[in-house]
């Protein structure tokens, strides 16, 4: 469907609805037309719900050991079998969702909280502050995301909280760069110039004109940063720099499973499948949101 058709469709909506609500409804309709995006939303929501409700939905506690049922295949009592200590794999995956979702969401929120204000300042005020901030960003971007996170986690010491902090800080430079670029571009828009000519204060211009016009970009950026942080948490935990045993994390489970690849390869399959599905669902959600929010995309 072309942009013109969409505009026509939007115009047909009842006139009593405000333009903003009409636009929101249009975006929702465009989003719902994409099966992959809807699937991503559903699966991602399931992971978030499971993480929140872990104590109620997990059949066992994550640390309950049963030495009479070690490395068991799946059965009615243990749907995904048990690990080397006789712990229920399904329960550990469900509890492990907590670490992943917590790290994914909090690290992204932290990265946004650091990067967006700094990016706004650099892009809006420019002057001497912009080159300073941009050079520092360049330096931080000179370290690959994961290397930066590994280094920060090493400085902070291994724990879930520190891994989350490290991932959040490591993800900030990319978001900062995008925010700055968007601000620079939006600052040149006619309506911003008009606001300046009208004598609007910086706070009003940023709060009413620049930030609202950037929200779509930031929303999409957040949905693609979350899976990055989820994989990052799993990687740090896999390397021993994140969640510490006995607390379950998908990365720790995979790291433990390495010793049992010959006896029980399934131990390495299920946690990885969880990481994969979780990050895939957020990626699909992000792709779908981007397409639905961007009036230029076809279909």
């Amino acid at each position, binding site marked *: 469907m072309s942009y013109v058709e969409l505009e026509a469709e939007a115009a047909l909506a009842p006139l009593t609805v405000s333009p903003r609500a009409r636009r929101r409804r249009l975006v929702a309709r465009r989003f719902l037309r994409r099966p992959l995006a809807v699937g991503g939303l559903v699966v991602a929501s399931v992971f978030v719900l499971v993480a929140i409700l872990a104590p109620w939905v997990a059949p066992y506690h994550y640390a309950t050991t049963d030495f009479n049922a070690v490395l068991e295949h799946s059965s009615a009592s243990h749907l995904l079998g048990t690990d080397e200590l006789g712990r229920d794999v399904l329960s550990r995956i469900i509890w492990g969702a907590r670490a992943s979702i917590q790290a994914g969401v909090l690290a992204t929120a932290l990265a946004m909280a650091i990067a967006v204000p700094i990016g706004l300042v650099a892009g809006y005020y420019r002057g001497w502050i912009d080159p300073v901030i941009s*050079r*520092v960003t*360049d*330096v*931080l971007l*000179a*370290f*690959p*995301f*994961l*290397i930066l996170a*590994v*280094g920060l986690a*090493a*400085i902070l*010491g291994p724990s879930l909280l520190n891994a989350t902090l490290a991932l959040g800080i490591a993800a900030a430079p990319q978001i900062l760069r995008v925010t700055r670029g968007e601000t620079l571009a939006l600052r040149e828009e006619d309506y911003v110039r008009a606001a300046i000519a009208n004598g609007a204060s910086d706070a009003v211009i940023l709060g009413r004109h620049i930030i609202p016009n950037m929200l779509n970009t930031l929303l999409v950026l957040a949905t693609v940063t979350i*899976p990055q942080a989820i*994989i990052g948490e*799993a*990687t740090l935990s*896999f*390397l*021993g*720099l994140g969640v510490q045993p006995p607390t379950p994390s998908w*990365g720790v489970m*995979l790291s433990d*499973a*390495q010793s049992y*690849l*010959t006896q029980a*390869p399934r131990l*390495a*399959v299920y*946690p*990885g*499948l969880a*990481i*994969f599905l979780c*990050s*895939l669902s957020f*990626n*699909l959600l992000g792709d779908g949101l981007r397409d639905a929010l961007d009036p230029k995309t076809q279909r």
Partner: protein
Amino acid sequence: MGSFLLRRAGAALIVIWLASVVVFAGMRALPGDPALALGGESRDPALLAEIRHKYGLDQPLPVQYAKWTWLALHGDLGVDSRDLPVAHTIVTRLPITLELAFLAVLFGATLGIVAGVIAAWRRGKASDYAATTVALVGLSVPHFWFGLLLIILFAVKLHWLPASGYVSFGQDPVENLRHLLLPAVVLGTGLAAIVMRQMRSAMLDSLTADYVRTARAKGVPEWRVVGVHAFRNSLITVTTIIGVQLGILISGAVITEQIFGIAGFGRLTIDAVNQRDYALIQGVVLVTAAGYVVVNLCVDFAYSLLNPRIRISGAPR
């Protein structure tokens, strides 16, 4: 073009210098006294003072930094906790990772470019959907899980390939490739997925461009239109993407080497971090950052060679 490249090289040098400051400051921010770590179990003040003196830890920070940079510029990165020269350790480990990275790029770029061209050429057909879906899956698969799955299938179940270890190329070229095949596939998969997506969209753009329509109107055979006219111009975008992805390859190498038990540069990084070996961490991180910046600079060079518009106007972007 000359001034553009000079400016780029100058900016790269500044970034490397600032990165060295960040690395140095970061190491000093680590909790704990490095002398205590180096002294092992000993708490003898005389010994600790001697260690501080030996590693220059008793001098002011700017002096320590100046000394460290001066020596680093001469290829001396100090000695690690086992008294081995850091630069030598890095030089022995780096070729292993470079070979792995080379094979991964070869695999990823070839697969990505071929799949991207086919997907764009057969747009909307089954092969397009298949390639696009596989690429999406490849993007979301975490390295370490994919690696474990390949080990389970090809090493544990089928016994076709070794699960871990490394044999140098000089020692036995066949064994060398057998050991590096799975790691290279693991490391190259993400790259293949990204290259495929970029190649597909670049080809789609090219195939609707005026010069392609002109070529078709002139009666140029279809394979030439797709394979030469559209393909050449799409390669420009993809070259940049591959360059940008090389940095991600460095992180990937850390994980891949950990899973496949390859004693390369990535494994060295993790070992240094786990052993809190400060001199080693400093050296490894500095080399990583410098390598990353130099690679990006090379991409700029390659890009300006491939794209005449930049060469003539001298204006980036």
